[in-house]
């Protein structure tokens, strides 16, 4: 089954049809996608800026991570669910644009970076987050996260513009 067939199946499913036929559902889902973005991308942006050293440099990284995590994860859950619903509605036209597969690839990269950070630094964070010089890798992970998630948002915003052709 090609990606196009798969997306066609999603669009033809009862959920896909229901979403497309409702006047309010699509804008509502898109609105929720945008608002949850402030929780997911917005809070991860602040976390990345802390890792890089631009934001609240005197606050322990572990504190920022642990206190924002529940909000950030909740945000990501809503962003992903609403994003998935938007895929149902848009269907196979999404593969007409190169920007959608790139967005998915960037999400994968950002996710892998987060897992790598968690495994490599997350568990020992209490040891290093009060030191002035914390592991270089942690800072790099912050930059990668900042770059990849920003590009994810850019790609997402570009979809409607590149989709028309």
């Amino acid at each position, binding site marked *: 089954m090609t990606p196009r067939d798969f997306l066609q199946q999603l669009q033809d499913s009862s959920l896909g049809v229901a979403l497309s036929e409702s006047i309010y559902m699509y804008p509502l889902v898109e609105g929720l996608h*945008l*608002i949850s973005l*402030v929780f997911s991308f917005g809070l991860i*942006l602040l976390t990345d800026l802390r890792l890089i050293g631009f*934001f609240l440099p005197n606050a322990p990284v572990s*504190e920022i991570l642990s206190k924002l995590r529940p909000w950030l994860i909740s945000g990501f859950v809503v962003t992903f669910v609403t994003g998935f619903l938007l895929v149902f509605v848009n269907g196979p036209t999404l593969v007409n644009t190169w920007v959608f597969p790139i967005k998915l690839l960037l999400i994968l990269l950002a996710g892998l970076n987060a897992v790598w950070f968690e495994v490599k630094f997350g568990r020992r964070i209490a040891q290093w987050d009060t030191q002035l010089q914390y592991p270089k890798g942690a800072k790099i992970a912050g930059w990668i996260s900042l770059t990849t998630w920003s590009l994810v*948002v850019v790609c997402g915003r570009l979809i409607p*513009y590149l989709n028309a052709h």
Partner: protein
Amino acid sequence: MSTQPFFQALQNSELAISIGQSNHLYGVLAQLFHIAGLVLILAPVLLVNLRLLGAGLTNQSIAQLVKATNPLIWTGFVFILFSGLFMFAPSAALYYPNPAFWLKFQMLALALIVQFTLYRKVTATEKPNRALAILTAILSLTLWFGVGIAGRAIGYVAA
């Protein structure tokens, strides 16, 4: 001069016409700056309001969070204002009959009033009245997120 002729005059102005005739790439770029500005403004607003609700970065003082997030908000403000004007000017008369457009700016006006009265007052005190802090946070978040949703709706509401 009432609003509609003003919108029309703006759309017919030389600057607006030259923006409208510019490469569409600039229009897309404006959209990107607009969403970047939205995140740069709303992420700090969310962080401070969570703190007012007693959640998020509770070990930091309210004043510290406000101070640390101010540069982000101002950067976002510059992004969102100029990209917004860039998108608005060439189609001003088209936005005039759009109810979502008006809803957005009514909510923006309310959000700014809350921002410069209640929010400013509550975030200036280290231990604000709990009920007042919660009320401020709920009002502020509802209005700011409302501005975002109404903005997103502009494209869906037939003019």
